[in-house]
């Protein structure tokens, strides 16, 4: 019985998919299937409510049946909630957009629900077999959703690109799993971590390092870290915008949850310290590459969807920086979860406005179309400005707090090179690019960005000398953090 309760968010979202499929078949043929989007969104919200209930009351529930395969600790439920929230938001903006594109089909929402349940399995899994199953269920539905507009050639191309490259990345993860099983004799991530703790890899340790590299490549693809990002701009631009929101938000959050959990559980930095190939250094290199590439290449883009795609690449870099700095306490106790939350909200809002703009038969999301946008649609312009400012990390918006606590965590942690890394991240002007699309909303955003960044730099460096403990994330997130003591759970 406990199993059924604990698994309820997962099976409820899968059941929503089945229900929507049934309604779609039974409904009148001339009925537009847009309302199914709201049915599916309701299913996601109910799943989220169940996850919230489990967070409050689920700690006492144990299930020997699920032990070792799934974990329903606060870590899973926190990221599961982010995923479900973003899924519901993407579904709410989908029906209108798809109707305007004349591409609304009931199956779209069925796939969305299946994809969400796959993401929950992905996030909850503590065994590499279940991780892979969740990853595939999540991705397979998204490939089809990307190519779902039958009239859009770019959409079909994007779907094909995502499908082929996604299959390749999954095979990397699967090969890594096979090697880890070959080395340790287990697919459970806690067992694998314990094995490496008892038998630390020494010397060349080719096979453990190779397995680790394969796992990082496989997951790095899903979170669009440079150099595994090549699909991102084309797919984000070609996909229907609600699917882009889905990929930039929910998939990325799920990907980071699993990335952090797998790396921190399987390859403890202190057991892999004896070999040259330490995951911390790999993650650091990925983080610096990703944020620089996303910010630099984003500047020259002229399409809003592409700009936001590069912005999401750059944000992945900052989140990776947080993963780099995480100590033994785990990802949830760090600022990464909070950062992801602020990123998620701002991304939904900005892509939502782009969805409203672009929803016509000939979707055009070039920057020129956004000139004077603030005058034509004052409220939408304001919303877009706020979300872009939040993405850029300008106070008083949430993105500023996210970046602030992230940098503070990096400075505070005892990882190597923390000061140069933070300075690098600060000069790496985040999302100037994103602000370009605010043309017409506010006059000269760039000066304002530079000014706030100088402010942020000075504050952080001052704080570093004056002691950082006065400003801890936990004070900010008191109700959340009281539940976070046992973060990874069994």
């Amino acid at each position, binding site marked *: 019985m406990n*199993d059924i309760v604990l*698994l309820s968010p*997962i099976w409820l979202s*899968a059941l929503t*998919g089945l229900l929507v*499929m049934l309604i779609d078949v039974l409904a009148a*043929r001339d009925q537009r299937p847009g309302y199914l989007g709201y049915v599916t969104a309701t299913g996601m919200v109910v799943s989220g409510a169940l996850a919230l209930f489990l967070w409050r009351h689920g700690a006492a529930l144990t299930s020997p*049946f*699920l032990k*070792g*395969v*799934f974990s329903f600790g606060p870590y899973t439920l926190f990221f599961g909630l982010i995923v479900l929230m973003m899924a519901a938001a993407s579904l709410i903006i989908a029906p209108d957009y798809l109707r305007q594109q004349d591409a609304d*089909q009931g*199956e*779209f929402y*069925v*796939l969305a629900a*299946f*994809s969400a*349940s*796959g993401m929950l*399995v992905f996030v909850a899994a503590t065994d590499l*077999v*279940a991780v892979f*199953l969740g990853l*595939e*269920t999540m991705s*397979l*539905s998204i*490939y*089809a*959703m990307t*190519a*779902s507009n*039958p009239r859009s050639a770019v959409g079909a191309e994007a*779907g094909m690109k995502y499908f082929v490259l996604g299959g390749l990345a999954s095979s990397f993860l699967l090969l890594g799993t096979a*090697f880890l099983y*070959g*080395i340790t004799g287990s697919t459970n991530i806690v067992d694998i971590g314990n094995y490496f703790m008892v038998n630390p890899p020494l010397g*060349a340790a*080719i*096979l453990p390092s*190779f397995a680790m590299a394969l796992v990082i490549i496989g997951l790095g693809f899903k979170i669009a870290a440079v150099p595994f990002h090549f699909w991102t701009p084309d797919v984000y631009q070609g996909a229907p915008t609600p699917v882009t929101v889905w990929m930039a938000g929910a998939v990325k959050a799920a990907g980071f949850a699993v990335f952090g959990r797998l790396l921190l559980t399987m390859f403890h930095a202190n057991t892999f310290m004896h070999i040259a190939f330490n995951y911390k250094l790999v993650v650091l290199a990925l983080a610096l590459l990703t944020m620089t590439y996303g910010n630099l290449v984003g500047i020259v883009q002229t399409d809003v969807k592409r700009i936001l795609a590069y912005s999401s690449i750059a944000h992945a870099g900052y989140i990776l920086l947080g993963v780099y700095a995480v100590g033994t306490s785990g990802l949830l106790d760090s600022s990464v979860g909070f950062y992801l939350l602020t990123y998620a909200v701002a991304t939904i809002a900005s892509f939502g406005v782009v969805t409203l703009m672009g929803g016509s038969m000939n979707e055009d999301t070039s920057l020129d179309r956004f000139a004077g946008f603030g005058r034509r649609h004052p409220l939408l312009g304001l919303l877009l400005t706020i979300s872009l400012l939040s993405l850029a990390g300008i106070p008083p918006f949430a993105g500023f707090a996210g970046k602030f606590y992230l940098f503070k965590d990096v400075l505070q942690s005892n990882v190597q090179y923390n000061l140069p890394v933070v300075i690098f991240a600060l000069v790496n002007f985040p999302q100037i690019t994103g602000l370009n699309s605010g043309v017409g909303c506010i006059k000269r955003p760039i000066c304002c960005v530079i000014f706030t960044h100088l402010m942020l730099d000075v504050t952080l460096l001052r704080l570093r000398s004056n002691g950082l403990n006065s400003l801890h994330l936990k004070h900010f997130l008191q109700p959340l953090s009281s539940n976070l003591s046992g973060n990874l759970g069994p």
Partner: protein
Amino acid sequence: MSAEMIVFWILAIGAVLGALAVVLPPFGRNPLHGALALVVSFIFMAGVYVQLSAFFVAVIQVLVYAGAVMTLFVFVIMLLNLTPEELAQPKYSWYKVLSVFSALAIGFIVASGLTHVLVHFHAASIPATFGNAASVGGVLVKKWLFVFEFSSILLLSAIVGAVLIARKRRS
């Protein structure tokens, strides 16, 4: 060299040669010949699985891979119906040279890693029921029940996705 080793080497060399024949001339030039070479490789691999006591996997390998999956391959080749002109001579670009080199490099890393593991490898005694259908089924419906059931959602989403992309528009 024991009889077991001799059988292993026959099976292993057969599997590798079959895999090479998929892409290399003379078979690899024609997609259908390539697909048939893949069947040969699959069947030799099934033999290797038998030697590893994984009987159930060996049977599945023949039934599903050499049977069902290969039928799909042949269907796709038939539906594409490529003419000899479309199957033009392959061009040799630096991409291909690079990919051969990276394949060799990865193969070298894997091989050296595996030989390192083999030095420390002790063959464990396995129960008599290891790898037969009953024990595989037992594992599937006990520890992995939910994961096993959830894989039906994966397959269902593949079917729904194919319908979504391929079907005609409703007017």
